[in-house]
């Protein structure tokens, strides 16, 4: 890990996230969101959690971002309209950020550097998923199936 890479990734991620939150055009915001996710995956690569980073890109870019742009496409008659912007949110977000930063900087135990560890292999993750986490994994599978069916039922057109 080096600080230069960390700062570069942080700048890209946070500015993309900021663009996603504030850009006026919805499509641009959705694409900035995808860029922010790529930046986050770069963070994961930086700390050595490659598998999670790849899973993040695979799921967020390949599925969630495409879903979002499709939704924008399907509701596009409304996209051009201005929806307004509440400044109260900015205040609250700034307050939350200030509070979190204050508490993080105040906590001395977080000012540590990463210990040397052996690289996390995909095999270890697979073994953990198939032994300790086998029931949570089944539950997630069930949840995803339920979400799939639920989403389909929600958007299906009713026959007149």
């Amino acid at each position, binding site marked *: 890990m080096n600080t230069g890479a960390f700062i570069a990734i942080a700048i890209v991620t946070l500015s993309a996230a900021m663009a996603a939150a504030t850009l006026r055009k919805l499509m641009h915001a959705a694409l900035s969101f995808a860029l922010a996710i790529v930046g986050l995956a770069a963070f994961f690569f930086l700390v050595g959690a490659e598998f999670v980073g790849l899973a993040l890109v695979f799921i967020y870019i390949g599925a969630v971002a495409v879903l979002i742009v*499709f939704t924008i496409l399907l509701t596009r008659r409304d996209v051009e309209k201005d929806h307004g912007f509440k400044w109260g949110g900015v205040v609250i977000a700034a307050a939350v950020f200030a509070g979190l930063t204050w508490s993080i900087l105040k906590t001395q135990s977080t000012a540590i550097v990463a210990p040397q560890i052996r690289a996390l292999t995909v095999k270890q993750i697979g073994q953990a998923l198939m032994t300790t986490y086998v029931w949570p994994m089944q539950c997630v599978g069930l949840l995803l199936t339920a979400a799939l069916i639920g989403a389909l039922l929600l958007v299906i057109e009713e026959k007149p």
Partner: protein
Amino acid sequence: MSKSIDQIFVSAKHWLLSWLAGSPDWLIQIASSLVNIFALLAVFLTLFALMSVLERKILGRIQNRYGPNRVGPFGLFQPVADGIKMLIKEDIVPARADKSVHFLAPILIAAAAILALGVIPYGRNMTPFGIDGGILFFFAVGSTTELAVFMAGWGSNNKFSMLGAMRAIAQMFSYELPLFVTVLPIVMVVGSLSPDRIVAAQAEYTYGLVPRWFVFTPWGAAAFILFFVAGLAESNRTPFDVPEGESEIVAGHMTEYSGFKYATFFMAEYIGMFAISGLGLTLFLGGWHAPARVLEFLPSYLWFFGKLSVLLMVYVWVRGTLPRTRIDQIMNLAWKFMVPMAFTCVIAAAVWHYAGRGLRGWLWSLIVIASVYTLLSIVLDTRRKFAPRVYRFAE
């Protein structure tokens, strides 16, 4: 001797990096990556140029005409002429287009295609970026293509573009599932997501004669055929080129692109095709391994590119032979046939593993695949569907 030829590119890279000896670690790492990237780009852009002219010539032969034969010997300099033509064309952006999205789409699509090449082992010790989850990386990068296609369709602000993009995304989503699932049996049997390990697992020979490639097992053969068809669809090749069907929707999501941006799309399509064939032969055809022990004196990269060219020729052959399918036929094939068959391959691989990976496993997995195939053809009523068509109103 043969060993030094086999490793010639690896030694060349080490020699190049020895100039930097004594520099900090990160500099050497960056330089090493840059060498890999330049090598990849040089090889595959040359291959792209070569492929674009060879494809046209072979298609010409298949269709009983000459193909390009004016520029240079045998028309081999045609790609240069094409490149110059593309470069000096006017770059037109529609007035109502979403300019930035319109501009970024070809860049993203080309970047994704090139990135996917990075994890394929091209020879012994010749994997550009040997990351542990290489297969997942390939698919993660490949999935950004869908977003890029959508960007092209949306950014152009054109009905044809949007229709083409919708078709392309529907098709890519449908075929990504069988593509990914047909890889699963390999990952299961090898126990690793790393392409290097998968190639290493196919190194030996059964009875000292038949190479232990996965395509020689029943589940591997079935998975390879499914993978190849899904790869055809993913790279938008005939017979699955509905997204850019010229006779229906101009050029699909590329309608509003001209000049070099169009060339970039074209290049991304070919490089995507190389990447998917490269992955296919890494997974099923033994990667860079020679097909027989006596042929192992030839360097490994020659075997890789030999196999790659055979696969690419099959792509061209398919393009020259089959007509375009309809979108509903494409969707039916994906969801009703390919997805169930892909999952059957996973089960057959498990059966093969638990029956001892030998002849018994071979027969049992064959039985599993054959029975599911028969069942599917009964359920889908293929006998009636593929019967000679009866024209009731014509004739």
